[in-house]
């Protein structure tokens, strides 16, 4: 999610800066950028809970040569470090904006490699047919980008609302509102496209598993029942229905409150859906062998 948000922000930066100028874009994207920080820290802290022997933690970097887990941890740390560096650079306006952009691009690239590594942790387990499938990286990327995009949308509206509450409209608002509207439209489109991808990948994945028999078929059984349906419904509502609404309502004249509600609700629904998805992804772990 952090990666997705970062990448999406980068896209917003690149696309929007041409139209609205870097400053304007920075004013709305920076707060979002700072919001990503804590999320990333939380992620790193959570990952520490996997260490049953925290004393040996640093050993996890010993095996970058073959272990995707080592690689994930390496790129995770790298992404976090670069992200913080970039955030700091933005905050203190270090270096030229081109340099900062370069740094952002590098961070985004490391982030994408991180997502790839993360998915490879699972993909590389040949003994787990539910994971050893092209759909694993595909799902990781769709999830990352979908959540990232909607998170940006939600964070964008949140910062906007906070600012309004604090000091009413500013001059930047006008730029903001068309910029924001454009951004939200873009996010809406992205969400629907990613939703389409996800709804293509999931049935393909299940069909593959069910057809393979054995452990794979056992895994496929996880994707039945109420939780699975709930996940589909939540993601569809969030990334489909609400994103379409967001796309339609997003205009400089729209009531920010409505947009904020839409953006936040879309993000919340998809987050819930994807959390179920992730949980089911783990539940589907059935190993071949004994």
């Amino acid at each position, binding site marked *: *999610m*952090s*990666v*997705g948000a970062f990448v999406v922000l980068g896209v917003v930066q690149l696309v929007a800066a041409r139209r609205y100028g870097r400053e304007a874009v920075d004013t709305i994207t920076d707060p979002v950028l700072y919001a990503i920080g804590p*999320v*990333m820290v939380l*992620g*790193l802290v*959570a*990952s520490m809970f*996997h260490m049953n022997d925290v004393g040996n933690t640093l050993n996890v970097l010993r095996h970058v040569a073959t272990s995707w*887990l080592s690689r*994930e941890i390496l790129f*995770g740390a790298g992404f976090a470090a670069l992200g913080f560096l970039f955030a700091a650079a933005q905050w203190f306006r270090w270096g030229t904006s081109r340099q900062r952009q370069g740094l952002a691009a590098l961070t985004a690239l490391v982030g994408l490699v991180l997502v790839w590594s*993360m998915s490879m*942790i*699972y993909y590389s387990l040949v003994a787990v047919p539910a994971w050893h499938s092209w759909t694993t990286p595909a799902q990781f990327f769709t*999830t*990352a980008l979908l*959540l990232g995009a909607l998170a940006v949308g939600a964070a964008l509206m949140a910062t906007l609302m906070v600012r309004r509450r604090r000091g009413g409209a500013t001059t930047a608002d006008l730029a903001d509102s068309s910029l924001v509207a454009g951004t939200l439209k873009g996010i809406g489109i992205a969400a629907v496209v990613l939703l389409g991808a996800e709804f293509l990948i999931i049935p393909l994945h299940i069909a593959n598993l069910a057809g393979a028999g054995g452990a794979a078929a056992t895994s496929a059984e996880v994707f039945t029942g109420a939780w699975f349906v709930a996940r589909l419904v939540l993601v569809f509502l969030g990334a489909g229905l609400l994103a379409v609404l967001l796309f339609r309502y997003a205009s400089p004249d729209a009531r920010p409150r409505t947009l904020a509600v839409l953006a936040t609700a879309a993000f919340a629904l998809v987050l819930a859906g*994807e959390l179920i998805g*992730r949980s089911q992804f*783990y539940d589907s*772990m059935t190993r071949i062998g004994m």
Partner: protein
Amino acid sequence: MSAPPVPPVTTTVPRRSFLKWSAAAGGGAALVGAGAYFGGLPGVGPASAATAASGLDVDRTVWSSCNVNCGSRCPLRMQVKDGRIVRVLPDDTGDDEIGTQQIRACVRGRSMRHRIYNPDRLKTPMRRRPGTRRGGGEWEEISWEEAYDEIASTIQRLVKDYGNESIYLNYGTGTLGGTITRSWPPSQTPIARLMNCVGGYLNHYGDYSAANIEQAAPYTFGSWIGSNSFDDARNSRLQVLFGNNPLETRMSGGGETFVTQRTRQDNGQRVIVIDPRYTDSAVSLADEWVPIRPGTDAALVAGMAHVMISEDLHDQDFLDTYCVGFDEEHLPEGIPAGSSYRSYILGDGPDGTEKTPAWAARITGIPASTIVRLAREIATSGPVHITQGWGPQRHANGENQARSIFVLAAMTGSIGVPGGGTGEREGSYGLPMANPFATTNPVETAISVFGWTDAIERGPEMTALADGVVGKDRLDVPIKMIWQYAGNALVNQHADINRTVRLLEDDTKCELIVVIDNQMTVSARYADILLPDVSNAEQLDVVQQGSAGNMGYAIVADQVIHPLFDCRTVYEMCSQIAARLGVEKEFTEGRTQEDWVRQVVEDSREAVPGLPSFDELREMGVWKVKGESYIGLKDFRDDPVANPLTTPSGKIEIFSDRLWEMAKTWELPEGDVITALPEYVATWEGAEEARTNAKHPLQCIGHHYKQRTHSSYGNVDWMQEAHPQVVWINTGDAADRGIVNGDLVDVFNDRGRIRLPARVTARIAPGVVSVPQGAWYTPDAQGVDVGGSVNTLTSWHPTAIAKGNAQHTTLVEIVKA
């Protein structure tokens, strides 16, 4: 999103079951404090750390053994460090050849440390708190002296008021093979020796293992005659196992598991297993599995006999020379025509029914074509190595089940020759070890091993003709006191536990129950006085061998560690009680336990050539000798005139005129019958009733299970993990009930309800379920036995002749819990 891997869900045996036992054992947890003592012990309890210390870092290695009732007996080498057993090693003498094999202990023996250091260990003498219910789990700790005094004074009072026949030694096989520390046979226990010093006790005959075949065999052979030993199957082209499952019942790698597998490997004889379950013996040994409805072996034999007679495949010469009652020409004097086995088979007998393969097929479930094929093969393969296990006889018609298989052995002429067999349980070579410690009971009255609950409830109503009382026409007194030494038959291994418990709760009937054990067993929960025994690793004994083909051996199981807690040896307990009864000299003869053990070895050396001295044996641990293969009735076969059997006719009695008489004189409950021939008898809760019983349509048997020897080891965590208690149910029967493998299910009938996971498997015949016997009865608040003891479901109804246990004759239903 950044979600790192979560640990996979591991499937381990929940600790619940382990803790459950502790909880059950700690019925008076405050008093017993199960587990609290074990905090610092290595390898004890679920939370013990795995310390992969070097296997060589120990103070000493001491020979011991596993002494439970599996028919095997395995030496164990125990490694001691700082006064604790830290590792158990197998026999390291001998090899992989039959007759000199290494006696590799089975899975249970290898878990011995967790039995010795079990949280359920009894630690100090305890008395049921006065005024509380038996089995209520409320205890008070007492001193050894108090315990001895109370037991001695109660014995004196009961002998005065009721006589010695009011005191009963209940069946128990928790410590078997030892000489001083032996809980079976009852007449050779230290308890018997103690009681014999003061006038004796009420005897029992038979045992829960084989009550019906033991009583049946003498009507055919005159006495208990084993079939040929398993190593002798090397002389066979065909081996047939009727419900005989050595790989699960006699699991020792020095005993019959090794002997059967090795013989099969070397000789390659065809093996047929006839059993309701696709047993592990079938998995490893069998070329063919013939699934059969429980309790219908006699019908299968009849169907095969029909084929043999019709096609003239039977050994008429053998039957003419050695047997009585096969055909009309060989019936005893004065028996009406149509009474021979041949007439019974061909429909010329009183029932007028021809016992065709089709007739047998309907009863047994085995297609007629299979019966025909089996009959031809068994009749034409030369001597057939025929044995039966003790499942077929543990039925309401068990005596006839057993006898019918003897007839099959006779019809094929397989009796008394190498490669053949009598149709009995396999025999084996054994050393004639002396037992100077044994004494004789002045009392001759005996009841069936299965009849003690009746003897508590209605002792003086029990007669010879109605209840199989022996030595008297009628009991004079009910049972007023029970000794239960190293046994779990008081509750767990007897039938209909709920009914048994109700009986025991009334302490006006049986007034004193003394349980001597080293674990808080199910039976121990129902004691009035509980005496904590040591394990065999905490004392010295000389240990008799188990069944091991043609190998003889003896073990000296040395004292490995000091007694734990306040536990004492049974020898000391009995000596102390004897002292209070004024017979200490008679009991001990001035000897210590070690003196007795030395005496046993020295006396045995006279009968066992080459047996080392006690001190040598102690050093060696185990001494082995390659003996002869056992050929049942070889002398008789070689010369029937010079070596007659002890039957009235001196021959093999297919028709028994003694049973003919009993059928007329014995008083049997409605539906029970005694037949002079080994006829197939449809019984209460039998295979035929199952198919018409809408309420309880499944036949329930109880196989011996790898987790336990009966109930021994049933509370060992490693064993519960390795072999959890599950009920076997056929895939089709499970599908009909919406049950999938691993589901928690209730197995129930009008006598009780148990709850345990289902093992849905094609390895059991349709219509049959099997609950591994020996699991520890553990009633929950609703009275559901969540321990899964099959005896929560079984019946008190005894068999017709032996008055024995018919615990595989049980009908049940199963539903998802």
